[in-house]
């Protein structure tokens, strides 16, 4: 299954992936209109320290601890992609407790959110990949 991979060799820590992620979730067509005066809460997040940068997003694990821990069954695996049914989520944060990558985070309305490979957006393919100016993020199969 294709996944999003970030190569820290080329990541500049410019945060454009975060903005493209936030933009994709709005399903708007113009980024300025979509994100003007908004504090973003993206599903891919940059970690930076002393010249090292990389972005972390859901790994869509083969053995997903978040799915096993979810108390409502809101998190489930569909065709390899771990998705969240936001209607079912009651914000208990057990998934945040379980995720070893820190890839799940609370969203503005309380339900949790994480990268779902842009399958629920209008564009359909991961936008963080598109927004990266230095080829640090790729969407490919690595036999995991």
């Amino acid at each position, binding site marked *: 299954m294709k996944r999003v991979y970030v190569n820290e*060799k*080329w990541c*500049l820590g410019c945060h454009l992936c975060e903005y493209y992620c936030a933009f994709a979730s709005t399903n708007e067509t113009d980024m300025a209109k979509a994100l003007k*005066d908004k504090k973003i809460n993206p599903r891919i997040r940059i970690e930076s320290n002393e*010249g090292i940068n990389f972005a972390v997003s859901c790994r869509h694990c083969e053995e997903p601890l978040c799915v096993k821990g979810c108390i409502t069954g809101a998190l489930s695996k569909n065709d390899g992609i771990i998705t969240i049914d936001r209607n079912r989520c009651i914000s208990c944060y057990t998934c945040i407790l379980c995720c070893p990558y820190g890839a799940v985070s609370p969203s503005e309305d309380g339900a949790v959110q994480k990268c779902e490979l842009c399958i629920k957006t209008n564009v359909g393919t991961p936008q963080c990949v598109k*927004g990266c100016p230095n080829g640090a993020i790729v969407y490919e199969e690595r036999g995991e």
Partner: protein
Amino acid sequence: MAINYVYPEYEIVRNYDRCINCRVCERQCANEAHKYLSDYNKMTSDDSKCVNCHRCVALCPTRALKIVKSNHTFRENANWNGKSINEIYKQAESGGVLLSSMGNPENYPVYFDKILLNASQVTNPSIDPLREPMETRVFLGAKPDRIERDENGRLKNNMPPQLKLSMPVMFSAMSYGSISYNAHESLARAAAEMGILYNTGEGGLHEDFYKYGQNTIVQVASGRFGVHKKYLDSGAAIEIKMGQGAKPGIGGHLPGTKVGEDISKTRMIPEGTDAISPAPHHDIYSIEDLRQLVYSLKEATAYKKPIIVKIAAVHNVAAIASGIARSGADIIAIDGFRGGTGAAPTRIRDHVGLPIELALASVDKRLRDEGIRNNVSIVVAGSIRSSADIVKAVALGADCVYIGTAALLALGCHLCRSCQTGKCNWGIATQRADLVKRLNPDIGYKRLVNLLTAWKHEIKEMMGGMGINSIESLKGNRLMLRGVGLNEKELEILGIKHAGE
């Protein structure tokens, strides 16, 4: 300082309706021209720090930024323009030599833009490049005067070593030190993929790039940085740098701050020391001395590699070239006054040297008049900007061109001419690891390949249009050129007729 004599040349214009405070401009400007004010939730910019490199403009996801030339003016003066005045202020302030980067930007005539190409019609039909084979390959090196046969009548191979190129373009000398490791990797990989060569410049050859040796010209400059036996053996050809178009008559200078561990190892100098290349080679004071070096290098490499001698285009370039052609060199590279550099004194860059078009034409004519044109191939450099410039250069007598600035533009350079600060925001003319990262060779080399592939097609189209199907037939073919807006002397030196004749 109390009095601001010099007003910022550029202003950063931000469309606040489109700015989403993503701070990419702030993060990506090595000159720290942008800042996010958290109290006001607003981005702000300091025009005085902007060098007009466009990094922020190119990365802004909502296209909210542009850089404009400030319309703050001096009183109009055809003689004392703003630039001249500001330069006086700078020197009164610093007491130092003005330094600049890249090529001469001044308003001297660009002869390529005053030369037009022919096309076939009616009497001599054009060739369709999509249907007919078009030969863009060239071979650089000395050509023998006559065919020789052995006692059985079979052809003797009396060809000196040749460089085979898939098209008449090579990447110009840009040293590792003036440009980054990633820039070199992009050039090397692109040269390998396109079947052409790139040039190490005077910074030596990094050990990671020995594997591209077949596509590398190793340069021996006056500082002899990084020159050792393995270095000479690794390249496909050796270039002796006598001069450089951007700064004829003087040497090179890489500040000690840029000489880190890697550069120190590659150039074979201690870390942190300035890398100064002296003006002359201190063992070459005459044409005989040059001949001696040429043959020393041939001996050291078993006569297997062509030797290139690179000179700047100066007033008696034809005589110099004639001497070089008799010295045993296989290829002469001539660098015109528009050539780029990492750093040079502004006055030398802008006021010394000759346009390559005139230099080329006069050298080609001189060598042909003396019957020694086949002793050498001629490579020209100094602002080849498009495939049209290449075709015109070949028609004026060049075997091949070097591209420097054009290659860097393909890699992302925006010609802001601030290379000497070492803070190139595009990761090209810098050694800062966080900036060098911005040039991903996987992307860079592809862009170079794209550029050359496009030019190759265009060259074929233009040649086909002229009814020519090989570079060899275009070479020195002055009848394919006409001048426009040139005076008699210029036409005479270029050896072409005026349009309409």
